[in-house]
């Protein structure tokens, strides 16, 4: 899965800005080849004392984003969230909430830097999650 530099930069800004709390948002595409080229930053709706290790996006807010995307011919590909000071691996909670067919990007963030991003996908609701390669466009130049 290709990730545009603009989208990566926006994710990076969001997760480092939110550190030490988890940041989350929506991954979108405006192209036919379905590369992630834009994002929508969400607010982490989990209560503040849990926000260092949990996140939750308001479904009604997401409904609005989804409708807007449809109007502007964009498509929701998946979601991203950060793991402050933790590796970018799926937690039990992450896996439980994965919607089949959606791409989940997890970014490990330490201090002021995004250390690593990894992508995951579930084929069926009861299938195990698979790691998918997220390629930053800059790496291809």
């Amino acid at each position, binding site marked *: 899965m290709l990730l545009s530099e603009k989208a990566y930069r926006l994710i990076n800004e969001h997760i480092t800005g939110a550190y030490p709390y*988890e940041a989350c948002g929506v991954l979108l595409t405006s192209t036919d080849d379905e590369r992630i080229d834009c994002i929508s930053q969400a607010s982490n709706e989990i209560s503040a004392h849990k926000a260092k*290790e949990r996140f*939750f996006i308001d*479904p009604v807010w997401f409904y609005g984003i989804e409708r807007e*995307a449809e109007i502007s011919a964009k498509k929701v590909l998946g979601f991203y969230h950060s793991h402050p000071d933790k*590796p970018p691996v799926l937690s*039990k*909670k992450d896996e439980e909430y994965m*919607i089949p067919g959606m791409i989940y990007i997890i970014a490990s963030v330490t201090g002021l830097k995004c250390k690593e991003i990894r992508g995951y996908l579930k084929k069926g609701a009861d299938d195990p999650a698979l790691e998918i390669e997220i390629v930053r466009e800059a790496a291809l130049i």
Partner: protein
Amino acid sequence: MKVYISATLRNFFGRNSVIDASGSTIKDILGFLTDEYPDSKEILYDASGKLRSFIQIYVGSENRTETDKWYKELKEDDEVLLLPAIAGGAPNESIISDERRKEISFDDKEIERFGKHLLLREIGVKGQKRIKAARVVVIGAGALGSPVIQYLAAAGVGTIKVVDFDEVSLENLQSQVIHTSRDVKRPKVASAKDKVRNIDRSIVFEDENSKIDTENIEEIIDGYDLVIDCTDNYKARYLINDACALLGIPLVFGAIYQYEGQVGIFNLNSGPCYRCLFPTPPEPGLVPTCAEGGAISPLPGIVGSIQANEALKLIIGIGKHLDGKLLTIDSLYLNSRILKVGKNHKCPICGTEPSIFKVEDFDYEEFCGLKEQENEIPVEGFTPEELAKKIENDEPITIIDVREPHERAIRRFPNAIAIPIGQLARRKDELDPDKDTIFICKEGKRSILAINTLREAGYTGPMYNLKGGFDAMKDIVFSHEGAWL
């Protein structure tokens, strides 16, 4: 009624964004959707019929996901929204706090010693500090304890407490690789202590040369980060589980039998406990212990190494582990499976309405069927010496060996009739009810089961058990061989 389907879920609803559904409640609408779009059933519900965590149902801006809101009548102009719950959390936390990690430092020798851990991105300096800060109790220094203790020591666990009441015997050496021929008749904890000191003298090794019971278990494990169960009997397993659940200490469980092994993690973050998986033990004598049933030599090495690996992952806070799962391994045919262990909400120790609050209040002997029941006729028995005397005096007795053929092939009991337990009831006519009949097995437990089986089958002749089984008698049989045969 119009139902809006989120783009994230549309593949399961014929790619429709809006569906005109019939029904006047959420319940009706969900029924309509699953009838019309059978694929949606898998996305809406899990195998137990529960709505999946990532599904949210809204009516306008009101959340109606909870099932008790599914029966409320909807208005004609209401719009039902089927939306995703987008949520998650950080991966496993270490069981060692950051504060304790920060108190740890390394010298140059330690950096060299643990270099291969420090090279691993997931462990690194922080993980190794957590390992050094950890305080772990290993109960049982036998077959499973051998690899567990040695790997924990080699990995650099700062404090290791080993609990075992037993002494090393020759037959232990086939699988208990922490002990050597020179350790025979020494306490197992002493032998384990020597081994750990040879690996790393800086480890704080605490030895507890006693048998765990309801009086001492809490004192033994209180204040430690993790307990590793390396015992070989049900009474100890339930006792350890219950004490861990009451004190909130995670437990790494392991068990072996012949060619098969099991590993699981219990009592972690309010997850299931051993009782959730096995609410009751099997009937006494039905499942032989590893000592009675045997085990292939490397099996405890495999299972114990996995236990040590799980323990280290919990300490460091990395990877996926067996929390709420049971790994089963068959070393004979090389099969392994991971079974899910659900939390039993009726569990007497960790359920919603627990009934065990103190281990002292629970009778583990009775629970595991180790106590004589009041209404059960007690089984009389002879000591090996008494039986030897009867044989020497040529008393008219019948000896029945209930061991399996492969056990009898190891050591034959002279002049005994071999009837395995499974055949006893139908072969009871081979016994003479006018003679005393003495039943023998390996350890004197299955022979009690044999006597009770015959009683149930209606045999009325006098029956006796050989106390301690053939194991207790083998020195007499072989030292007297030829004298009284």
